[in-house]
């Protein structure tokens, strides 16, 4: 198992390194004068001011040197200063948005994973019956719906018509858990719809495959009740491939919720990234992309680790 994990870990480091080079290169290729951009687009800068800014940003060094400077700062926690918002430091800003996104991701996972697995198991146990078809049709249908459509429908029903939940998800200081839940439920449900299709189908396929295996016959012929057979034996093995799908979803939940965040006006990472790209706010873009790639890679590493732990063949060799 050490070999297995060592390889995965090194792959993680390698991925992050390559990503950092790509980010660095790409953002520096954005059209427009960096000096101008760094001042929020101000055009009337004196020569002195320009020179000062150039020195500040280290633009006189060679490109590889600039990369190393940037990488070094990043790793030390200095993520630069925002090009807008009065040169506010990037790190606290990004971390705050990350926090919001993590809350939304957590709630989404808490709803979607148990629900998808349950639906997948039911569909598999009732393979080829009307229940199976219903679940399949439902989960595929909601996957197909664009998020802004789902969000708007949900807002319309639950906020405007029934007035149970707020229409926007603005964050204010001093929110209690109850407050957070109120603003997060609708966006979480929207995100759940997207995940439902993938995870439930993966689970369904996994369970159907496992049910065909000889050990299920052994367990049945032990006289064990159905519930124990499915939940203790079958699911344990059937979920292993589903874990991989969930890991990929986590990456999406961290950085891909742009549309949902826009519709609900939620200050998450995805929306911030989108806004910063528009504003050409390079330091923020760099930092957020690094965070997203890191989240993605960690999620995959976590999935591999979990897989190795749950699969005795890998854990023990």
């Amino acid at each position, binding site marked *: 198992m*050490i*070999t297995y994990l*060592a*390889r995965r870990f090194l792959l993680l480091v390698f991925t992050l390194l390559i990503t950092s080079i790509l980010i660095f290169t790409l953002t520096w290729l954005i059209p427009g004068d960096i000096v101008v951009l760094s001042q929020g687009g101000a055009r009337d800068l004196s020569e002195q001011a320009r020179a000062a800014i150039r020195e500040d940003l280290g633009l006189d060094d060679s490109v590889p040197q600039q990369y190393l400077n940037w990488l070094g700062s990043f790793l030390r926690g200095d993520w630069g200063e925002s090009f807008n918002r009065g040169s506010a430091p990037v790190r606290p800003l990004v971390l705050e948005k990350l926090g919001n996104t993590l809350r939304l991701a957590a709630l989404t996972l808490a709803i979607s994973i148990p629900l998808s697995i349950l639906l997948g198991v039911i569909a598999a146990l009732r393979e080829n019956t009307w229940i199976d078809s219903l679940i399949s049709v439902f989960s595929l249908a909601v996957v197909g719906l664009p998020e802004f459509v789902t969000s708007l429908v949900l807002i319309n029903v639950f906020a405007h018509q029934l007035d149970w939940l707020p229409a926007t998800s603005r964050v204010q200081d001093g929110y209690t858990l109850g407050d957070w839940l109120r603003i997060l439920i609708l966006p979480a449900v929207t995100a759940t719809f997207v995940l439902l299709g993938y995870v439930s189908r993966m689970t369904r396929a996994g369970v159907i495959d496992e049910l065909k*295996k*000889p*050990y299920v*016959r*052994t*367990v*049945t*012929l*032990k*006289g*064990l*009740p159905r519930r*124990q057979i499915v939940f*203790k*034996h079958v699911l*344990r*093995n059937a979920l292993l491939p589903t874990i991989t799908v969930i890991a990929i979803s986590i990456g999406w939940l961290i950085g891909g919720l742009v549309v949902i965040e826009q519709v609900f006006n939620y200050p998450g990472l995805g929306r911030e990234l989108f806004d910063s790209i528009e504003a050409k706010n390079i330091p923020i873009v760099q930092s957020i992309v690094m965070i997203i790639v890191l989240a993605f890679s960690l999620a995959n590493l976590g999935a591999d680790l979990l897989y190795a732990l*749950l*699969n*005795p*063949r890998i854990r*023990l060799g």
Partner: protein
Amino acid sequence: MNQAHDPLLTTPVIRADDLCIDYRLGKTWLNAVREVSLAIHPMQIHGLVGESGSGKSTLALALMRYMSSNARISSGTLTFEGVDLLSYSEAQMRSIWGHRIALVPQDALASLNPSYTVGNQMGELLQRHTDRSPAQAQAYAVEMLRQVKIADPELVARRYPHQLSGGMMQRVMIAMALSTQPRLLILDEPTTALDVTTQAVILDLFRELVRDPSITAGAGALYVSHDLGTVAQLCDHVTVLYAGEVMESAPVADLYVRPLHPYTVGLLASLPRPIEGQETRLSTIEGVAPSLADRPHACVFSTRCPAALDLCRAEKPPLENISAGRMVRCWRWREIESGELSLGLSPVTRSPQPIAEAQAATDEITAHPTRVLNVRGITKHFGQRTWIDRALRRKFRPIRAVDDVDLSVNVQSTLGVVGESGSGKTTLARCIVALETADKGEIELCGIDISRDLSQRPRDVLRNLRMVFQNPESALNPYHTIGQALKRPLRLLGQRDGRALELDQRVAELLESVRLPTEYAGRYPGELSGGEKQRVAIARAFAAQPALIVADEPTSSLDVSVQAVVLNLLKDLRRTNGVSYVLISHDLDVISYLADWIVVMYLGQIVEQGTTQDVYGAPSHPYTEALVSAHPVADPQVRGKPIRLDGEVPSARDLPTGCRFHTRCPRKIGPICQQQEPPWQDAGNRHFIRCHIPIDELAALQTDGEAHKA
């Protein structure tokens, strides 16, 4: 056979009367098992024998009321311990499964959940059916493991299935089945996937446990198998199934010595055994078993029976109760019993028929030196060092599959390679044919050095060295017709300028030589049975007229009656084509039928070589001795020497020092076996044994205790 009481006088544990089982194919229900009557008594091991398609597994599982969703029991009665089992609901069956009736399945590894420890899986069964707490259940599970002679049961209970060997896992399955003291045990080919020596140990264990009232409390057992040898050695009573119907049922001695049904007679006669003379052939049963939809409404065996009358083809014979426990379904059983009817099913002698072509082939070979194949120093190790291994400074331990093997094959002779799993015999075969590139060594074909690397072998070499594989299902391309499959070697390796017409003719000749209809050239492999596919594979090997054919377990996946046909074929073709064989098998009877020279392999080395007679007799290497004694003889009155090997085959990564067999050798003499590699000893007549024990001493030790009558 020692019987303290007559089990037939007691009430049967389970009893089936006129049971019928149907299968649904599409929209129609077809009859798979018809009018089967069967009774299993306490302390009785009842064998259920049949070939593939006979319905034996279906029947065995139906006795437990475990059916797939497209099967049903359509009529008949099933009484278990006095209760009508057919009236039970699934919930009621769940209290019986694992508790009163237990199954020991064929593939132990696949039958266990890979994610839980063995102890956990045994414990959960005990918790379900007895009042034990989890801790108590675990403790009892360990005790059961001890009962099945597993060394260090606490450790094994904490292991996961993939960490255990096949033999050990089968013991776990037996322990698990017995742990709730069921009244009926159903064993579905439990030793088919195991090596012969392991199989012998498991069968011994089983025999002992079932007869021990403290463990099984008078349970009965159903032993399902296609292997007539193991059934003869283990069972008290046997039922023979063909095409879903009982043909005959009798106490084991009666069935093997005085069979009354033509099918039973045919099966027993087609078993390979060492027969003197090159021209003798095994008797075979004509034809093929009918498919589910094609079964005759009269006697189901009538299409293939050598004694079939019009009566047989018109009316189905009833299952007659002849005497206590003896049943036959045949119109003519009285004639067979009295000896009036001779079925002509004993080994046949035929005079050789040389063909002009074969003469040419023989001439070509005799023009070359006498050795067709000469192999020296072949070594093949598997395994790679990755960079992580280097970084962690791990010692490099490759799998030493074949180590420094020498062998040779003479013109028109057959070399048998005997060994079990891990012996390296398949790797050796693949190295000879260059499907694997040996690491070291030389190979000479007809005196000419050939490369170990396949890509460097010229067409001539490829033509002369062909292979037949074990599994006919995967040896033929399912998208090519039989004709295309046979033309390929003709085109690529035969005369290049063959015109289409000549190729077709040659294909027809090849099909005829393996006794298949010439129309098969247009069919696809999916339309052929296993035996027919294997015959096509053989024809393909012979197509370009090779000098040597390597056959890797050519009949292992085939039924007994089909095996007889293929073995006869191999013998005939050897004579008519003047070809030599390297025949690999774990079945000693198959080897002795075809081979005139044998090498025995263990853990990558040859431990003995000599003529068939010399190797099987005394003196022989202790491993060969164990193999021969483990081989189940299809005669209930003959018990082999009870020589059993302890322990497991060591891993090929961690070979034992000195003699590789010393960890399991029942004749180990002392530290020398561990310290020094044994020398080759000459036992005369070019019979060589690799052992530290002097030949004379070995001969004396081994002749004491020949196969005795039980």
